């Protein structure tokens, strides 16, 4: 039996299927990975408080979070593995030429992932095999390696936006500087933005579980602390993230102006450009947008009359799809500011009254903060990935030159989608079960139960 191999004739349907499959599996993994990066630190903090104060509530929380972490880490490990398969199965053209250029951060990521997996195994399974202090210390490599993994992986993605560290002759890589490729100009803003995003998703995500419980009347110390610890982490980091986001946007203005032009729907290069909120882009114009005069020039270059480059600078076949990028960016920013307001609400109440907010509206909003942070995460990721189109390696290799020539990718996409639907349903069901499992009521908690206020 011999199958026709349509070498070098990738159909648009196949290309679309490959892109969709990559987007699905990466968009799925990125959420779980955020918990893998952010959750260990929050859990280790609770365990540390338990050791310091002997407070049983902290110990219960640490145990509970460790259980959820076990499930999330397993799912994250396998959904991450799939991505390394897909790098070759879907994008062999990219890997054949540039695998060696971006190999370094991935090799380092391999070691970080090793350390993370080893110490997570110890942390999750050795509560009764190690003295309490040693056990706490085994959580630290998990936190550090999680952040390091995120850093290394995003270095590789940053390289796709700012390819450096190689010479090319007739499509063949003739010289490589692996460290220059890894530490490319996009590395600092992108890695910091992503690592903070991971802590926001983990913090708001965990807090929203307890916000729901508090709304349902389980307003005891356990649930208030379970809310306050992760929420405080996320609320404190949100303004930092907005500042870093501004840095990332500045970076685009000078280093990847076409992406910024797509974000803003700016066609002609012009001076004193307004910031456009909302709207719909067609035929080189943004329609129905709310315009704030000169603000984009000000934000992008710290000068209200600065020149901002437009999409017209590059030929039409090198422009990203504007509406997707524009709206993804708007959604990310909107979610970021909504979360900033929510965090400020809690921090102001905490500062003035030394307690958590009591308003039900606060907890209703907080219950959605996890969803909002995930939405911001996905929207931000769409902005950076779709904003790079049609390039897989910006300015160097187009997506259609990277995709596999294998036929039948649509069928593969269908199967993979089915598996991810099942995986999503099962993950949510298992996490809900874990959250609902009755608490082993500890004596301390019964005594101090509802008399104390929660403390962030």
């Amino acid at each position, binding site marked *: 039996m011999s199958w026709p191999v349509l070498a070098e004739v990738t159909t648009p349907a196949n290309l679309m299927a490959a892109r969709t499959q990559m987007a699905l599996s990466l968009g799925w993994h990125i959420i779980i990975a955020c918990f893998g990066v952010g959750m260990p630190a929050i859990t280790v903090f609770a365990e540390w408080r338990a050791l310091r104060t002997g407070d049983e509530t902290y110990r219960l929380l640490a145990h509970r979070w460790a259980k959820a972490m076990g499930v999330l880490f*397993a799912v994250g490990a396998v959904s991450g593995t799939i991505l390394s*398969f897909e790098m070759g199965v879907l994008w062999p053209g990219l890997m054949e030429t540039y*695998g060696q250029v971006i190999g370094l951060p991935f090799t380092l990521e391999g070691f970080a992932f090793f350390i993370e997996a080893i110490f997570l195994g110890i942390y999750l399974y*050795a509560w009764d095999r190690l003295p309490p202090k040693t056990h706490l210390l085994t959580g630290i490599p998990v936190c550090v390696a999680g952040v390091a993994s995120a850093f290394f992986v995003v270095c590789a993605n940053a390289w796709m936006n700012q390819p450096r560290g190689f010479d090319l002759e007739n499509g063949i890589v*003739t010289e*490589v500087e*692996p460290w220059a490729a890894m530490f490319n100009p996009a590395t600092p803003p992108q890695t910091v933005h992503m690592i903070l995003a991971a802590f926001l998703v983990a913090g708001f995500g965990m807090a929203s579980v307890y916000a729901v419980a508090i709304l349902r009347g389980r307003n005891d110390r356990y649930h208030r602390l379970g809310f306050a610890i992760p929420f405080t982490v996320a609320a404190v980091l949100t303004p930092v993230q907005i500042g870093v986001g501004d840095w990332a946007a500045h970076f685009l203005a000078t280093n990847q102006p076409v992406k910024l032009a797509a974000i803003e729907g700016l066609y002609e290069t012009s001076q004193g450009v307004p910031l456009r909120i909302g709207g719909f882009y067609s035929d080189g114009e943004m329609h129905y947008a709310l315009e704030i005069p000169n603000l984009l020039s000000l934000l992008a270059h710290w000068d209200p009359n600065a020149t901002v480059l437009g999409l017209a600078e590059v030929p039409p076949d090198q422009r990203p799809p504007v509406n997707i990028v524009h709206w993804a960016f708007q959604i990310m920013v909107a979610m970021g500011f909504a979360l900033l307001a929510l965090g400020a609400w809690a921090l102001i109440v905490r500062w003035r009254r030394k307690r958590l907010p009591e308003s039900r509206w606060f907890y209703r909003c907080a219950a959605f903060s996890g969803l909002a942070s995930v939405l911001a995460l996905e929207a931000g990721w769409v902005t950076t990935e779709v904003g790079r189109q049609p390039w897989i390696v910006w300015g160097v290799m187009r997506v259609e030159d990277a995709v*596999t020539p294998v036929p039948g990718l649509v069928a593969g996409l269908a199967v993979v989608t089915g598996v991810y639907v099942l995986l999503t349903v099962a993950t949510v069901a298992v996490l809900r079960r874990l959250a609902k499992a009755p608490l082993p009521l500890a004596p301390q908690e019964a005594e101090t139960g509802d008399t104390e206020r929660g403390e962030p």
Partner: protein
Amino acid sequence: MTLADWLIGLMWVALTAYVVLGGADFGAGVWDLVAGGARRGARQRELIEDSIGPVWEANHVWLIFVIVLCWTGFPAVFASVSSTMYIPLTLAALGIIARGASFAFRKASTQLGHRRLYGAAFAGSSVLTPFFLGTVAGGIASGRVPRGLAEGDLVTSWWNPTSALAGVLAVVVSAYLAAVFLCADARRAGSVELTGAFRRRALGSGFAAGAVALGGIVVLRYDAPFLFSGLTTVALPVVVLSAVAGLVSLALLARGHFAVARVPAAVAVGALLWAWAVAQYPLLLPPDTAIDDVSARPEVLAVTLGVSAVGAVLLVPSLVWLFVLFQRPARE
């Protein structure tokens, strides 16, 4: 030895670790599959869960490490194999998802129905994943993956006698390793009954692995003559080492020396991989693509080897601690 030789050597060490350690985790899933009904198999499943729970994720990372080393050091090989082997690699990837996720889900579930469902997914995918990964190895070894994007046949590159042999061998060998490892775990857990059960399985699957490997020689003689001639000449000492180590492990198992039997069992399986490597050296993609034709730039190879040496300083003691910690009895 060139830098490329060192890197392929490192990759092969990592692959050996994955086949021995990760293989045993898959093999545990195979035994989970045949442990019997929910009640009868409960104690076996509990032992399997306790044994692989803390270590399977670390063992799994070896696979990722092999993949990353491959695309860094031999990008053309990575692109050729993964494009031609689109089908079995996609199936193996889905198997990896099902195995890892359902194992964690089962542990977190309490209802019998859910545990059964996740258990079935865990055990079923523990058979399918090593099988498909084995078919990929068989396709490469029998020279069915030419250099270039999807240059090989999308179906017959992995659906052929050598691939079938390698797939079955991967499953049987995994089951054998798992049974050997579980014997010692069962004894430490103090269960005479489970120890006996896994000893019988270890002996049975050990003989089965030997039979498949021996029978396989006939298959290779006709389907992969190049590999066959390598295995019977330059690689013969390694093949013999594998056979002898396998027999020693069976003798130790029969006499009840379970902890020691792990070593020759691991050697027997690891030597199979090294026999394959020696038989086709210096080719990477038989019949005509050699290591030096497809290796990355020397500066890339040097950096990769350098950071791996530094990484190993962190990795090795951590791994040793992980394994030692869970081989000791728990504290009060």
